[in-house]
Protein backbone atom coordinates (compact mmCIF):
# COMPACT_ATOMS: atom_id res chain seq x y z
CA UNK A 1 0.00 0.00 0.00
CA UNK A 2 1.24 3.47 -0.90
CA UNK A 3 1.35 6.17 1.73
CA UNK A 4 1.04 9.91 1.34
CA UNK A 5 1.88 12.19 4.25
CA UNK A 6 0.18 15.58 3.93
CA UNK A 7 0.19 16.47 7.62
CA UNK A 8 0.44 20.22 8.05
CA UNK A 9 -0.94 20.91 4.56
CA UNK A 10 -4.16 22.83 4.23
CA UNK A 11 -7.01 22.60 1.77
CA UNK A 12 -6.74 22.03 -1.20
CA UNK A 13 -3.22 20.55 -1.01
CA UNK A 14 -4.21 17.12 0.47
CA UNK A 15 -6.71 16.49 -2.34
CA UNK A 16 -4.44 17.90 -5.07
CA UNK A 17 -1.55 15.64 -3.99
CA UNK A 18 -3.75 12.59 -3.48
CA UNK A 19 -5.26 12.99 -6.91
CA UNK A 20 -1.80 13.25 -8.48
CA UNK A 21 -0.80 9.97 -6.77
CA UNK A 22 -4.01 8.20 -7.71
CA UNK A 23 -3.69 9.24 -11.36
CA UNK A 24 -0.26 7.58 -11.46
CA UNK A 25 -1.46 4.33 -9.80
CA UNK A 26 -2.81 1.20 -11.51
CA UNK A 27 -6.40 -0.01 -10.95
CA UNK A 28 -6.72 -1.95 -7.67
CA UNK A 29 -3.83 -0.14 -5.99
CA UNK A 30 -4.54 1.48 -2.64
CA UNK A 31 -3.29 4.81 -1.25
CA UNK A 32 -3.34 5.78 2.41
CA UNK A 33 -3.38 9.55 2.97
CA UNK A 34 -2.35 10.95 6.35
CA UNK A 35 -3.70 14.48 6.93
CA UNK A 36 -3.87 16.77 9.94
CA UNK A 37 -6.64 19.06 8.65
CA UNK A 38 -10.04 18.02 10.13
CA UNK A 39 -11.67 19.51 7.03
CA UNK A 40 -10.01 16.76 4.98
CA UNK A 41 -12.66 14.25 6.18
CA UNK A 42 -15.51 15.97 4.32
CA UNK A 43 -13.21 16.96 1.46
CA UNK A 44 -12.14 13.38 0.67
CA UNK A 45 -15.75 12.20 0.87
CA UNK A 46 -16.85 14.90 -1.55
CA UNK A 47 -13.94 14.38 -3.91
CA UNK A 48 -14.39 10.58 -4.00
CA UNK A 49 -18.03 11.03 -5.02
CA UNK A 50 -16.83 13.09 -7.99
CA UNK A 51 -13.64 11.26 -8.90
CA UNK A 52 -13.81 9.07 -12.01
CA UNK A 53 -10.90 6.83 -11.09
CA UNK A 54 -10.98 6.49 -7.30
CA UNK A 55 -13.21 5.35 -4.46
CA UNK A 56 -12.87 6.08 -0.76
CA UNK A 57 -12.56 2.70 1.00
CA UNK A 58 -12.45 3.97 4.57
CA UNK A 59 -11.55 6.83 6.89
CA UNK A 60 -10.22 6.70 10.45
CA UNK A 61 -8.46 8.88 12.99
CA UNK A 62 -5.17 8.04 14.69
CA UNK A 63 -2.68 9.77 16.94
CA UNK A 64 0.81 10.49 15.64
CA UNK A 65 4.08 10.24 17.61
CA UNK A 66 3.44 13.64 19.17
CA UNK A 67 -0.12 12.72 20.16
CA UNK A 68 -1.68 14.92 17.47
CA UNK A 69 -4.81 13.79 15.68
CA UNK A 70 -4.25 12.36 12.19
CA UNK A 71 -7.04 11.78 9.68
CA UNK A 72 -6.37 8.72 7.54
CA UNK A 73 -8.13 8.35 4.19
CA UNK A 74 -7.84 5.02 2.30
CA UNK A 75 -8.37 5.42 -1.43
CA UNK A 76 -8.54 2.71 -4.08
CA UNK A 77 -7.63 3.38 -7.68
CA UNK A 78 -10.32 2.32 -10.10
CA UNK A 79 -10.03 1.93 -13.84
CA UNK A 80 -9.37 3.16 -16.34
Amino acid at each position, binding site marked *: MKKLDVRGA*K*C*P*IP*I*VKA*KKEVDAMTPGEVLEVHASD*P*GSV*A*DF*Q*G*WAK*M*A*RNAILQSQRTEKDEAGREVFVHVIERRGP
Partner: protein
Amino acid sequence: MIAVLSIRELLERADAAEDFLLLDVRNEDEFAAWRVEARAPIETLHVPYFDFLEDAEGSIARIPEGREVVVLCAKGGSSAMVAELLADAGRSARNVEGGMAAYGNHLEARRVPLAPGARHEIHQVLRRGKGCLSYLVRSGGEAVVVDPCRHVAFYEELARGLGARIVGALETHVHADHLSGGSRLAAGAGILGEIPIEIVPAPGHTPESRIYVVAGTHVLTGDTLFVSSVGRPDLGGEVVPWARELFRTLRERVARLPDDAVVLPAHWSTPAEIGPDGLVAARLGDLRRTVPELAIRDEAEFVRAMEASARPAPEAYARIVRVNRGLEEATEEQASEWELGRNECASAHGGRKS
Protein backbone atom coordinates in the same frame (compact mmCIF):
# COMPACT_ATOMS: atom_id res chain seq x y z
CA MET B 1 -0.67 36.71 -8.34
CA ILE B 2 -4.42 36.39 -8.43
CA ALA B 3 -6.62 39.34 -7.54
CA VAL B 4 -8.20 39.20 -4.10
CA LEU B 5 -11.28 40.62 -2.44
CA SER B 6 -11.73 40.99 1.31
CA ILE B 7 -14.92 39.87 3.05
CA ARG B 8 -15.60 43.54 3.79
CA GLU B 9 -15.42 44.43 0.09
CA LEU B 10 -17.51 41.40 -0.85
CA LEU B 11 -20.26 42.40 1.59
CA GLU B 12 -20.18 46.06 0.53
CA ARG B 13 -20.58 45.08 -3.10
CA ALA B 14 -23.29 42.53 -2.33
CA ASP B 15 -25.22 44.96 -0.09
CA ALA B 16 -25.13 47.50 -2.92
CA ALA B 17 -26.51 44.85 -5.33
CA GLU B 18 -23.49 45.22 -7.62
CA ASP B 19 -23.24 42.83 -10.53
CA PHE B 20 -20.92 39.86 -9.96
CA LEU B 21 -21.18 36.11 -9.78
CA LEU B 22 -20.23 34.39 -6.52
CA LEU B 23 -18.64 31.03 -7.25
CA ASP B 24 -18.76 28.92 -4.10
CA VAL B 25 -16.33 25.97 -4.36
CA ARG B 26 -16.91 24.32 -0.96
CA ASN B 27 -18.24 20.77 -0.73
CA GLU B 28 -21.99 20.05 -0.73
CA ASP B 29 -22.48 19.80 3.05
CA GLU B 30 -20.67 23.03 3.82
CA PHE B 31 -22.53 24.87 1.08
CA ALA B 32 -25.89 23.54 2.30
CA ALA B 33 -25.18 24.49 5.92
CA TRP B 34 -23.96 28.09 5.66
CA ARG B 35 -23.90 30.77 2.98
CA VAL B 36 -22.80 34.37 2.61
CA GLU B 37 -25.82 36.61 2.93
CA ALA B 38 -26.24 40.30 2.20
CA ARG B 39 -29.07 42.82 2.11
CA ALA B 40 -29.54 42.05 -1.60
CA PRO B 41 -29.64 38.47 -2.90
CA ILE B 42 -26.25 37.25 -4.16
CA GLU B 43 -26.21 35.44 -7.49
CA THR B 44 -24.35 32.27 -6.56
CA LEU B 45 -23.04 29.29 -8.51
CA HIS B 46 -21.92 26.20 -6.60
CA VAL B 47 -19.18 24.08 -8.17
CA PRO B 48 -17.09 22.13 -5.62
CA TYR B 49 -13.36 22.63 -6.08
CA PHE B 50 -12.77 18.93 -6.69
CA ASP B 51 -14.87 19.27 -9.84
CA PHE B 52 -12.16 21.62 -11.08
CA LEU B 53 -9.50 19.02 -10.20
CA GLU B 54 -11.31 16.24 -12.04
CA ASP B 55 -12.35 18.26 -15.05
CA ALA B 56 -10.98 21.78 -15.16
CA GLU B 57 -12.14 22.58 -18.68
CA GLY B 58 -15.66 21.23 -18.19
CA SER B 59 -16.02 23.05 -14.87
CA ILE B 60 -14.80 26.36 -16.30
CA ALA B 61 -17.30 25.93 -19.14
CA ARG B 62 -20.12 25.84 -16.57
CA ILE B 63 -19.35 29.43 -15.59
CA PRO B 64 -21.06 32.02 -17.77
CA GLU B 65 -18.59 34.06 -19.81
CA GLY B 66 -18.22 37.79 -19.53
CA ARG B 67 -19.06 37.87 -15.80
CA GLU B 68 -16.85 39.03 -13.02
CA VAL B 69 -16.41 35.95 -10.86
CA VAL B 70 -15.69 36.09 -7.12
CA VAL B 71 -14.50 32.72 -5.79
CA LEU B 72 -15.20 31.61 -2.22
CA CYS B 73 -14.34 28.52 -0.14
CA ALA B 74 -14.02 27.58 3.54
CA LYS B 75 -10.64 29.20 4.28
CA GLY B 76 -9.48 30.75 1.01
CA GLY B 77 -7.07 28.04 -0.19
CA SER B 78 -9.19 26.11 -2.69
CA SER B 79 -10.82 29.26 -3.99
CA ALA B 80 -7.35 30.71 -4.71
CA MET B 81 -6.57 27.62 -6.76
CA VAL B 82 -9.85 27.88 -8.69
CA ALA B 83 -9.45 31.65 -9.22
CA GLU B 84 -6.03 30.95 -10.71
CA LEU B 85 -7.46 28.30 -13.05
CA LEU B 86 -10.09 30.78 -14.17
CA ALA B 87 -7.56 33.58 -14.64
CA ASP B 88 -5.36 31.23 -16.68
CA ALA B 89 -8.39 30.51 -18.88
CA GLY B 90 -8.74 34.24 -19.51
CA ARG B 91 -11.66 34.79 -17.12
CA SER B 92 -12.01 37.69 -14.72
CA ALA B 93 -11.79 36.10 -11.27
CA ARG B 94 -11.01 37.25 -7.75
CA ASN B 95 -10.42 35.20 -4.62
CA VAL B 96 -12.20 36.00 -1.35
CA GLU B 97 -9.41 36.21 1.20
CA GLY B 98 -9.89 33.92 4.21
CA GLY B 99 -13.14 32.45 2.86
CA MET B 100 -16.03 31.57 5.16
CA ALA B 101 -13.71 31.57 8.19
CA ALA B 102 -13.09 35.30 7.59
CA TYR B 103 -16.84 35.82 7.04
CA GLY B 104 -17.57 34.22 10.42
CA ASN B 105 -15.13 36.56 12.17
CA HIS B 106 -15.96 39.77 10.30
CA LEU B 107 -17.39 42.63 12.41
CA GLU B 108 -18.83 45.99 11.31
CA ALA B 109 -19.79 48.91 13.56
CA ARG B 110 -22.52 51.44 12.84
CA ARG B 111 -23.64 54.39 14.92
CA VAL B 112 -27.25 54.29 16.08
CA PRO B 113 -28.95 57.67 15.51
CA LEU B 114 -30.05 59.27 18.81
CA ALA B 115 -32.13 62.34 19.56
CA PRO B 116 -30.31 65.65 18.97
CA GLY B 117 -28.45 66.73 22.07
CA ALA B 118 -27.96 63.19 23.41
CA ARG B 119 -24.91 63.09 25.66
CA HIS B 120 -23.96 59.56 24.71
CA GLU B 121 -23.49 57.37 21.65
CA ILE B 122 -24.61 53.84 20.85
CA HIS B 123 -22.74 51.82 18.23
CA GLN B 124 -24.20 48.59 16.92
CA VAL B 125 -21.61 45.95 16.01
CA LEU B 126 -22.81 43.44 13.41
CA ARG B 127 -21.16 40.05 13.11
CA ARG B 128 -22.38 39.41 9.59
CA GLY B 129 -21.56 35.72 9.29
CA LYS B 130 -23.37 34.71 12.46
CA GLY B 131 -26.13 37.29 12.75
CA CYS B 132 -24.82 38.41 16.16
CA LEU B 133 -25.23 41.97 17.43
CA SER B 134 -23.29 43.64 20.20
CA TYR B 135 -23.18 47.24 21.35
CA LEU B 136 -20.74 49.84 22.48
CA VAL B 137 -22.24 52.65 24.55
CA ARG B 138 -20.01 55.71 25.02
CA SER B 139 -20.43 58.56 27.43
CA GLY B 140 -17.55 61.02 27.69
CA GLY B 141 -14.29 59.12 27.84
CA GLU B 142 -15.87 55.87 29.00
CA ALA B 143 -17.55 53.04 27.17
CA VAL B 144 -19.29 49.80 28.05
CA VAL B 145 -19.77 46.91 25.66
CA VAL B 146 -22.91 44.79 25.73
CA ASP B 147 -22.78 41.17 24.56
CA PRO B 148 -19.25 41.37 23.12
CA CYS B 149 -18.03 38.65 20.75
CA ARG B 150 -14.66 37.09 21.54
CA HIS B 151 -12.95 39.54 19.13
CA VAL B 152 -12.09 41.95 21.93
CA ALA B 153 -9.49 43.89 19.92
CA PHE B 154 -12.28 45.14 17.65
CA TYR B 155 -14.13 46.81 20.54
CA GLU B 156 -10.93 48.22 22.01
CA GLU B 157 -10.08 49.76 18.64
CA LEU B 158 -13.61 51.10 18.21
CA ALA B 159 -13.49 52.70 21.68
CA ARG B 160 -10.04 54.15 21.00
CA GLY B 161 -11.30 55.71 17.77
CA LEU B 162 -14.04 57.42 19.79
CA GLY B 163 -11.55 58.66 22.35
CA ALA B 164 -12.97 56.37 25.01
CA ARG B 165 -11.76 53.58 27.25
CA ILE B 166 -13.79 50.43 27.91
CA VAL B 167 -14.72 50.38 31.58
CA GLY B 168 -17.17 47.49 31.61
CA ALA B 169 -18.78 44.63 29.75
CA LEU B 170 -22.40 43.60 30.20
CA GLU B 171 -24.14 40.44 29.05
CA THR B 172 -27.86 40.11 28.42
CA HIS B 173 -27.50 36.37 29.11
CA VAL B 174 -25.14 33.39 28.88
CA HIS B 175 -24.87 32.90 25.11
CA ALA B 176 -25.02 29.46 23.52
CA ASP B 177 -24.25 30.39 19.92
CA HIS B 178 -21.00 32.31 20.28
CA LEU B 179 -18.12 32.72 22.72
CA SER B 180 -18.17 35.88 24.78
CA GLY B 181 -15.32 38.35 25.04
CA GLY B 182 -16.84 39.87 28.17
CA SER B 183 -14.46 38.45 30.74
CA ARG B 184 -11.45 39.57 28.70
CA LEU B 185 -12.75 43.10 28.11
CA ALA B 186 -13.52 44.05 31.68
CA ALA B 187 -14.33 42.41 34.95
CA GLY B 188 -17.64 43.19 36.58
CA ALA B 189 -20.51 45.35 35.43
CA GLY B 190 -20.03 48.81 34.03
CA ILE B 191 -21.42 52.04 35.37
CA LEU B 192 -21.35 54.61 32.63
CA GLY B 193 -20.87 58.19 33.72
CA GLU B 194 -24.11 60.10 33.65
CA ILE B 195 -25.97 57.68 31.39
CA PRO B 196 -28.46 55.50 33.24
CA ILE B 197 -28.48 51.88 32.13
CA GLU B 198 -31.49 50.22 33.72
CA ILE B 199 -31.45 46.46 34.18
CA VAL B 200 -34.75 44.67 33.60
CA PRO B 201 -34.82 40.95 34.48
CA ALA B 202 -36.19 39.05 31.47
CA PRO B 203 -36.19 35.28 32.12
CA GLY B 204 -37.48 33.06 29.32
CA HIS B 205 -34.91 32.55 26.58
CA THR B 206 -32.70 31.61 29.52
CA PRO B 207 -33.40 31.99 33.26
CA GLU B 208 -30.77 34.72 33.78
CA SER B 209 -31.72 36.78 30.70
CA ARG B 210 -32.01 40.53 31.17
CA ILE B 211 -32.76 43.62 29.14
CA TYR B 212 -30.80 46.87 29.35
CA VAL B 213 -32.63 50.16 28.88
CA VAL B 214 -30.11 52.83 27.87
CA ALA B 215 -31.00 56.41 28.81
CA GLY B 216 -34.67 55.47 28.83
CA THR B 217 -34.92 55.36 25.03
CA HIS B 218 -33.01 52.38 23.62
CA VAL B 219 -33.72 48.84 24.75
CA LEU B 220 -31.01 46.20 24.36
CA THR B 221 -33.31 43.18 24.33
CA GLY B 222 -30.68 40.44 24.05
CA ASP B 223 -32.38 37.23 22.91
CA THR B 224 -35.72 38.11 24.50
CA LEU B 225 -37.13 40.06 21.58
CA PHE B 226 -35.83 40.31 18.00
CA VAL B 227 -37.17 42.50 15.20
CA SER B 228 -39.07 39.60 13.63
CA SER B 229 -39.48 37.01 16.40
CA VAL B 230 -38.79 36.24 20.06
CA GLY B 231 -35.94 34.24 21.60
CA ARG B 232 -36.49 30.50 21.61
CA PRO B 233 -37.11 29.16 25.12
CA ASP B 234 -36.21 25.54 24.29
CA LEU B 235 -32.39 25.69 24.32
CA GLY B 236 -32.20 24.50 27.93
CA GLY B 237 -34.39 21.47 27.32
CA GLU B 238 -37.17 22.89 29.57
CA VAL B 239 -39.40 24.41 26.95
CA VAL B 240 -42.66 24.57 28.94
CA PRO B 241 -41.45 26.33 32.12
CA TRP B 242 -39.10 28.59 30.17
CA ALA B 243 -41.84 29.47 27.66
CA ARG B 244 -44.12 30.44 30.58
CA GLU B 245 -41.36 32.68 31.94
CA LEU B 246 -40.86 34.24 28.52
CA PHE B 247 -44.60 34.91 28.20
CA ARG B 248 -44.63 36.72 31.55
CA THR B 249 -41.48 38.68 30.64
CA LEU B 250 -43.10 39.84 27.39
CA ARG B 251 -46.56 40.51 28.87
CA GLU B 252 -45.44 42.11 32.11
CA ARG B 253 -41.97 43.60 31.64
CA VAL B 254 -41.66 44.37 27.92
CA ALA B 255 -45.30 45.48 27.83
CA ARG B 256 -44.46 48.33 30.21
CA LEU B 257 -41.91 49.89 27.85
CA PRO B 258 -43.16 52.75 25.65
CA ASP B 259 -44.05 52.37 21.96
CA ASP B 260 -41.31 54.85 21.08
CA ALA B 261 -38.56 52.75 22.66
CA VAL B 262 -36.04 51.55 20.06
CA VAL B 263 -35.39 47.82 20.23
CA LEU B 264 -31.77 46.81 19.64
CA PRO B 265 -31.60 42.99 19.75
CA ALA B 266 -28.66 40.56 20.05
CA HIS B 267 -29.34 38.77 16.75
CA TRP B 268 -30.96 38.77 13.39
CA SER B 269 -32.12 35.62 11.61
CA THR B 270 -32.29 36.79 8.00
CA PRO B 271 -30.62 39.74 6.26
CA ALA B 272 -34.13 41.08 5.61
CA GLU B 273 -33.98 42.28 9.23
CA ILE B 274 -31.09 44.63 8.42
CA GLY B 275 -32.57 48.01 7.54
CA PRO B 276 -31.58 50.30 4.65
CA ASP B 277 -29.38 52.21 7.11
CA GLY B 278 -27.47 49.00 7.81
CA LEU B 279 -28.83 48.73 11.35
CA VAL B 280 -30.96 46.03 12.97
CA ALA B 281 -33.40 48.12 15.02
CA ALA B 282 -37.12 48.75 15.33
CA ARG B 283 -39.62 50.85 17.27
CA LEU B 284 -41.23 48.71 19.95
CA GLY B 285 -44.63 50.04 18.88
CA ASP B 286 -44.03 48.65 15.38
CA LEU B 287 -42.96 45.25 16.73
CA ARG B 288 -46.16 45.09 18.79
CA ARG B 289 -48.00 45.04 15.46
CA THR B 290 -45.63 42.84 13.43
CA VAL B 291 -44.12 40.18 15.71
CA PRO B 292 -46.72 37.39 15.90
CA GLU B 293 -45.57 36.09 19.30
CA LEU B 294 -46.15 39.50 20.87
CA ALA B 295 -49.78 39.40 19.77
CA ILE B 296 -50.53 36.16 21.66
CA ARG B 297 -52.46 37.08 24.79
CA ASP B 298 -53.08 33.62 26.20
CA GLU B 299 -50.26 31.89 28.10
CA ALA B 300 -51.26 28.34 27.12
CA GLU B 301 -51.46 29.34 23.46
CA PHE B 302 -48.02 30.99 23.69
CA VAL B 303 -46.51 27.88 25.29
CA ARG B 304 -48.01 25.69 22.55
CA ALA B 305 -46.52 27.96 19.89
CA MET B 306 -43.10 27.73 21.55
CA GLU B 307 -43.35 23.95 21.81
CA ALA B 308 -44.27 23.76 18.14
CA SER B 309 -41.19 25.73 17.13
CA ALA B 310 -38.83 23.79 19.45
CA ARG B 311 -36.07 21.97 17.57
CA PRO B 312 -32.71 20.42 18.39
CA ALA B 313 -29.98 22.92 19.24
CA PRO B 314 -26.79 22.92 17.17
CA GLU B 315 -24.36 20.39 18.60
CA ALA B 316 -21.73 22.89 19.71
CA TYR B 317 -24.10 24.99 21.86
CA ALA B 318 -23.63 22.96 25.05
CA ARG B 319 -19.85 23.37 24.83
CA ILE B 320 -20.09 27.10 24.07
CA VAL B 321 -22.27 27.58 27.17
CA ARG B 322 -19.69 25.78 29.32
CA VAL B 323 -16.93 28.11 28.08
CA ASN B 324 -19.10 31.23 28.53
CA ARG B 325 -19.83 30.10 32.09
CA GLY B 326 -16.10 29.82 32.72
CA LEU B 327 -16.22 26.04 33.22
CA GLU B 328 -14.03 25.26 30.21
CA GLU B 329 -11.59 27.02 27.94
CA ALA B 330 -11.46 26.94 24.16
CA THR B 331 -8.55 27.39 21.78
CA GLU B 332 -8.93 29.81 18.87
CA GLU B 333 -9.27 26.81 16.53
CA GLN B 334 -12.05 25.24 18.63
CA ALA B 335 -13.80 28.59 18.95
CA SER B 336 -13.85 29.06 15.17
CA GLU B 337 -15.12 25.55 14.60
CA TRP B 338 -17.87 25.68 17.25
CA GLU B 339 -19.08 29.07 16.05
CA LEU B 340 -19.51 28.06 12.39
CA GLY B 341 -22.89 28.91 10.92
CA ARG B 342 -25.63 31.39 11.60
CA ASN B 343 -27.15 31.67 15.07
CA GLU B 344 -30.20 29.53 15.91
CA CYS B 345 -31.56 31.67 18.74
CA ALA B 346 -34.92 32.87 17.40
CA SER B 347 -38.16 31.03 17.93
CA ALA B 348 -39.20 31.44 14.31
CA HIS B 349 -37.20 28.77 12.49
CA GLY B 350 -34.91 30.33 9.87
CA GLY B 351 -36.38 33.71 10.70
CA ARG B 352 -39.36 35.38 9.15
CA LYS B 353 -39.59 37.62 6.17
CA SER B 354 -40.50 41.01 7.52
